[in-house]
């Protein structure tokens, strides 16, 4: 058991270090694969440059005005800002990220986008979400769940903070079959 926990801590540390060590996101090229021109026009260029997701969870979330949204692993804030546009000031968006510097980027981009009045960014871990039970209507995430060494725990936390009838829309990468161990065990591959 202790060894497993150490392994989990090592993974968490490796992921945190990897994200703390980058100076930009995947950039506009990747963002254009994932988001429409109209969607990209809704967010500041800085948030587009910091896009690190693998899909478009907001498009599938069917957000309604007035809903309260949690963006798990909010990064530079692109999905939080898109969500904030859809729920409007009657709703709210909380971006949660393990890195304070990512939260700062999210705040800056949300301010540039003019949605900071109902969008906030908090430092925290998806396995221990700092929100009360039943306080959120929709949870979104983008390329984040695979980063957790305790995925069931993270999903249980998301379940806990959702209101009854609440929903999730999560973009992520799935892998069928085995990857060569040199890749599967590489810290960079895990973080990526």
């Amino acid at each position, binding site marked *: 058991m202790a060894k497993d926990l150490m392994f989990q801590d090592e993974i968490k540390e490796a992921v945190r270090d990897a994200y703390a060590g980058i100076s930009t996101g995947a950039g506009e090229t990747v963002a254009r694969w994932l988001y429409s021109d109209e969607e990209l026009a809704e967010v500041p260029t800085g948030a587009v440059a910091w896009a690190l997701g693998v*899909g478009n969870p907001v498009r599938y979330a069917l957000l309604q005005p007035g809903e309260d949204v949690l963006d798990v692993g909010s990064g530079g804030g692109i999905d939080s800002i898109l969500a904030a546009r859809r729920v409007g000031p009657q709703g709210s968006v909380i971006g949660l990220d393990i890195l304070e510097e990512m939260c700062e980027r999210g705040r800056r981009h949300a301010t540039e986008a003019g949605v900071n009045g109902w969008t906030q960014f908090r430092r925290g871990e998806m396995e221990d979400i700092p929100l009360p039970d039943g306080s959120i209507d929709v949870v979104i995430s983008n390329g984040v769940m695979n980063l957790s060494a305790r995925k069931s*725990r993270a999903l*249980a936390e998301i*379940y806990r903070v959702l209101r009854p009838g609440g929903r999730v829309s999560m*973009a992520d990468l799935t892998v069928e079959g085995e990857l060569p161990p040199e890749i599967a065990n590489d810290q960079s591959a895990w973080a*990526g």
Partner: protein
Amino acid sequence: MAERVFAAKLQGVGFEDVWVGGHRPSGIDEASHYPLFTEEVIELMRKTLPPGRHDHVATGVVVKARKPRTHGRTKRTT
């Protein structure tokens, strides 16, 4: 994580109406745009994965699910 494992984990903590869609192949060239992948691991992928898999190493998906409206089971996991 495999798609069926992702769906099973959601159901395991109590979610219902699990839906998986938006499938999009993701290959090595795409991965190389992400700063999280080092040049070394990109090269490692090119060397160790069969060429037929270079354009489809993983699949991007969107997974949706709903918490039951009525009192559902909440399972704390460690």
